[in-house]
């Protein structure tokens, strides 16, 4: 959890950590334009783990109905930054 709203770079770095832990993704592959399913090989089960880990790490909630909007790393980073700022 963070006490101040994280920057896009903070979230990108944190997301890379999560992806490395959950699916073994190389950190350099975690770039804004990468899609979770096609480029990063995150299947639907792993995506649930990624979401829960991000929620814990960044202190945000990511409801299931918003998930389909998060196709790329960049989508997720902006969503988490915006959600953190709104919190």
């Amino acid at each position, binding site marked *: 959890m963070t006490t101040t709203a994280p920057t896009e770079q903070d979230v990108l770095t944190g997301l890379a950590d999560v992806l490395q832990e959950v699916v*073994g993704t190389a950190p350099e592959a975690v770039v804004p334009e990468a899609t979770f399913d096609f480029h990063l090989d995150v299947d*639907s*089960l*792993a995506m649930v*783990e990624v979401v829960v880990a991000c929620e814990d790490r960044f202190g945000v909630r990511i409801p299931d109905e918003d998930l389909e909007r998060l196709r790329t790393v960049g989508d997720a980073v902006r969503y988490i930054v915006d959600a953190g700022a709104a919190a």
Partner: protein
Amino acid sequence: MSEPVAVTGLGALTPLGPDVAALWDGLLTGRSGVRLLEEPEFAALPARLAATVDLDGRLDRVEARTLDRVQQVALVAAREAWADAGAPEVEPERLAVVLGSGIGGALTLLSQDAVLRDRGPRSVSPHLVPMLMPNGPAARVGLELGARAGVHCPVSACASGAEAVAQGLALLRSGAADVVVVGGAEACVHPLPLAGFAQMRALSTRHDAPAEASRPYDKGRDGFVLGEGAGVLVLEREEHAAARGARVHARVAGAGLASDAHHITAPDPAGTGAARSVTAALRDAGVGPDEVGHVDAHATSTPLGDVAEATALGLALGAHRPPVTAPKSCTGHLLGAAGAVEAVAAVLSLREGVVPAVRNLDDPDDAVDLDVVRLTPRAHPHEVALSTSFGFGGHDVTLVLTR
């Protein structure tokens, strides 16, 4: 139809070591894979012995975190068997998997139950269901090999592994597949299953001498030792194996299945169900009782079970007394993996012409009228082997293997 099928690949991850070579070496030298469980979570248990495997470095970290331990041991053994078979080129639609487990992903079920209680439902792993389902090991192996002719999981307690071999034989004979990867896997060394087996008074409590705890046919036996691991065989239609010039270790020539309808866990002391499975297997293979060259017995080291099986073998084999061995004296009891690991051992006995000795058989039980091999392995070239497996629930499975 009763045609045999070829065994072209072998794999085993057992308490005797990381592969088939370690299993065979352990059986021939009479090593024990049993240890005292000294971790604190086992301290309160009345039975604290187990035969465990070493998985360190066998799977990558990401692979390991989405696979229950029973799936991990299955994959390791399947990879060895597949490589040993020369990674046969087979159409995916002609490749099947039959891989049994007695218990399934118990360790995941138990650890995730703790997660649910401690941290709530949103912390429960999304991999929970595929990790705990009993067909998980079969499905994981099927995924890895790309098997599309069917993936099956016989669940018949300690006969599961043998039943998988029987189902694989049936699939090949039916023409539904050219290659079937068969086996069994188990991994449930945890305080709860141990407490449950202990409450049945099924486990040895020889804590002062773990390596002597599993002692089939010995007067001093006091129960089995829980083991973990996996055994896998690649079975192949003879023509398919011949066409690709595959090395054939031995053959599965017949299988016989029966059920006791006697008691949910106790063996039928008359041994009639077990005997019927032996007779059915011999008939299926077209082999007479007198032709049996050795028996790889189920023999778990329980006071009742070993005698019931000996009675059954007497019923089925008449006056014939082939040499008998009992791998569980070294490996412990691998439950749903046992029948598959012991089928691997029986194949090696046939191929090498040697029957390993039963470890810890110091004082043979007078109630056992069998020629049990003890003290040293017996050089014994032979053509036909039996492997018997019996499970809680009254499952009786016998396999006939030939050179």
